[in-house]
């Protein structure tokens, strides 16, 4: 007989549950500007510490500091602020539209606007994203028509997906936005395949894969890293760590790896952590990774440390699993307010102009919504044809589907 104690299973728990005091003391936040910026051709083993730190540019006084600063002009930053404000206003209106029964479902980006909005600006026309459901900022920052996004959400007669996709599952080849899958992590390895194809064809375009912290537990995440590492694919592998996978805290998927970025190290992929609520830091790191990919130096893995302020979706109730005030305690602040403050510090913006811009942007979103609603909403007005159910399963409709379409009366 062994004299050892009986075994017991370790089940991680978040620091605090509803009713408790929010606690982010476990999130170690380095000072803005303190993390060095390596050359893009650095050996991955020489920057292992970047997988455990957090790259930050904006300090608490709203100044851009350190080696990752200085990449964006006033005009570019104002455009970035506008994109984030636009996404926030869009979210607010679509959330309300869902509550009004104009669509079945919506997913907002509250608190995470900087990630996709800033990232898009580091890409070029022709590059391809393989996004999840919380990167609409990629479209907004690329000037995709908001009315089209709303048509998709309303599943109306002008829905580019003809009513076949869940709301927010956009698609736009022209805007480098691969059709979203509700199955998690599948698109991550597809991004690697797209990037491999670009390299096979000696093209100059690169790809970006997107995944949430929880979905890094999916086997496709690991497959993607194997393929990206093996073939040195020109791909940026993004992990948006927003702390919560629906109700499951990020410690469940992370296990003992310390950080999500650290998972790249075992594959020899340069891995960086960045303050996901810092527009300037996100842009700087994305551009670094994009340059690596374009210079044929292979993949980069980026973990965006952020916080999902809103519910996972309109079907979720976060008050059931986390303290109501937790988002206010998030130590990396609000991405919109931080960039606003920085622009004011730079002398390029003011409280008055911000308030005015907020009103103008909301008006623009409302006008877009009016235009979209002319084409119908989920339960009222114009709808995609029933015939559209049967079209597009194959390039050419096979006889059995044609028979079924005829049986349905179309």
């Amino acid at each position, binding site marked *: 007989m062994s004299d050892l104690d009986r075994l017991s299973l370790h089940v991680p728990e978040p620091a605090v549950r509803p009713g408790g005091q929010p606690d982010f003391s476990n999130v170690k936040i380095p000072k803005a500007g303190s993390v060095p910026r390596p050359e893009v051709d650095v050996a991955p083993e020489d920057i292992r510490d970047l997988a455990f730190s957090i790259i930050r540019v904006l300090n608490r006084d709203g100044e851009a500091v350190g080696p990752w600063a200085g990449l964006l002009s006033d005009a570019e930053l104002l455009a970035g602020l506008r994109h984030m404000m636009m996404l926030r206003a869009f979210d607010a209106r679509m959330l309300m539209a869902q509550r009004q029964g104009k669509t079945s479902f919506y997913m907002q980006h509250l608190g995470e606007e900087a990630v996709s909005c800033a990232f898009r600006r580091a890409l070029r026309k022709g590059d391809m994203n393989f996004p999840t459901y919380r990167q609409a900022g990629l479209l907004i920052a690329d000037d995709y028509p908001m009315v089209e996004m709303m048509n998709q959400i309303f599943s109306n007669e002008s829905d580019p*997906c003809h009513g*076949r996709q869940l709301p927010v599952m956009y698609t736009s080849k022209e805007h480098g936005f691969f059709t979203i899958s509700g199955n998690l992590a*599948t698109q991550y390895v597809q991004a690697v395949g797209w990037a491999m194809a670009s390299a*096979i064809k000696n093209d100059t375009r690169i790809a970006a894969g997107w995944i949430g912290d929880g979905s890094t537990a999916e086997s496709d995440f690991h*497959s993607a890293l194997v393929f990206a590492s093996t073939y040195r694919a020109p791909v940026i592998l993004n992990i948006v760590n927003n702390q919560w996978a629906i109700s499951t805290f990020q410690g469940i998927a992370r296990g003992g790896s310390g950080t999500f970025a650290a998972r790249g190290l075992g594959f020899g992929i340069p891995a960086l952590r960045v303050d996901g609520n810092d527009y300037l830091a996100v842009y700087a790191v994305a551009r670094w990774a994009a340059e690596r990919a374009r210079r044929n130096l292979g993949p980069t893995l980026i973990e965006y440390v952020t916080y999902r302020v809103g519910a996972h979706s309109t079907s979720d109730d976060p008050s059931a699993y986390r303290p109501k005030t937790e988002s206010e305690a998030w130590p990396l602040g609000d991405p919109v307010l931080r960039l606003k403050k920085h622009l004011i510090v730079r002398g390029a913006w003011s409280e008055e102009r911000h308030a005015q811009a907020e009103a103008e942007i909301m008006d623009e979103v409302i006008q877009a919504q009016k235009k979209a609603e002319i084409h119908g909403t989920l339960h009222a007005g114009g709808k995609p044809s029933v015939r559209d159910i049967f079209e597009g399963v194959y*390039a050419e409709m096979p006889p059995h589907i044609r028979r079924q379409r005829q049986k349905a009366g179309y």
Partner: protein
Amino acid sequence: MARMTMIEAVRSAMDVSMGRDENVVVFGEDVGYFGGVFRCTQGLQAKYGKTRCFDAPISESGIVGTAIGMAAYGLKPCVEIQFADYMYPAYDQITQEAARIRYRSNGDFTCPIVLRMPTGGGIFGGQTHSQSPEALFTHVCGLKVIVPSNPYDAKGLLISAIEDPDPVMFLEPKRLYNGPFDGHHERPVTPWSKHELGDVPEGHYTIPIGKAEIRRKGSAVTVVAYGTMVHVALAAAEETGIDAEVIDLRSLLPLDLDTIVQSVTKTGRCVVVHEATLTSGFGAELVSLVQEHCFYHLEAPVVRVTGWDTPYPHAQEWDYFPGPARVGRALTEVMEA
């Protein structure tokens, strides 16, 4: 024309396609330098370079997922899954991604990939090298499913599959790779070089997807089969002396329903044969369709001859494999009903 085994015909199809279209790429486990465990891709890397024919990590989901990404870019990946039995880790990518990308994006993105996989038993492959998973694919809208039964068809159908704008599952009956096999495992195998369908054009030709072929004309009973079972059905017809019409489906999805209906309407009897297990197998779909479209012409219940509803055993393989004796008994039963 040249004499080819099914392996050589499959290889020739990829060779011809890669030569005609520089967007065709071939990859999978061991397919590059080594040429695949069955040597179907032998010589392709040497001829087309290692960025067009290359080895992949042992990650089926990764292989199919990257193929989908390549297809979204504009390439035409022709991928080898080493055995159909290894397909399951990629099932999500195949059924919920590849199959639906055209539909969900309204054609904004498409997925012209071919997934080749050796299928079926009869090689003492045990439970994990003998499966026939075609029904798992025919249930999925957006896929096409092909099972050739000879070298000539294999080449023509594979070229069609590679040129097809949609995802195609190409199931290669591995027992037929080197010769036709009628289920008499105790007899020496006749090579394809002595079979008329081993005479294969060396250049480009296609066989339309969705068209069956009548392999044996008959008037008493229709046997619907595909893959290895076509040869078993032909043997059973010869050995029983029953005037059976044998249909080789070649393509399961889309299915050539017209050929089946015309034949059963003529014969009034039908036997469906496949290697996969009975319950919810593709035979169930075939029997339903025959019942739906030929009910008033039927003179006997439609009978299925299939693998048993068990995993594929190793030592008892020949009791599992639907051989000519079992098919023959079914033919007799249907004729006497």
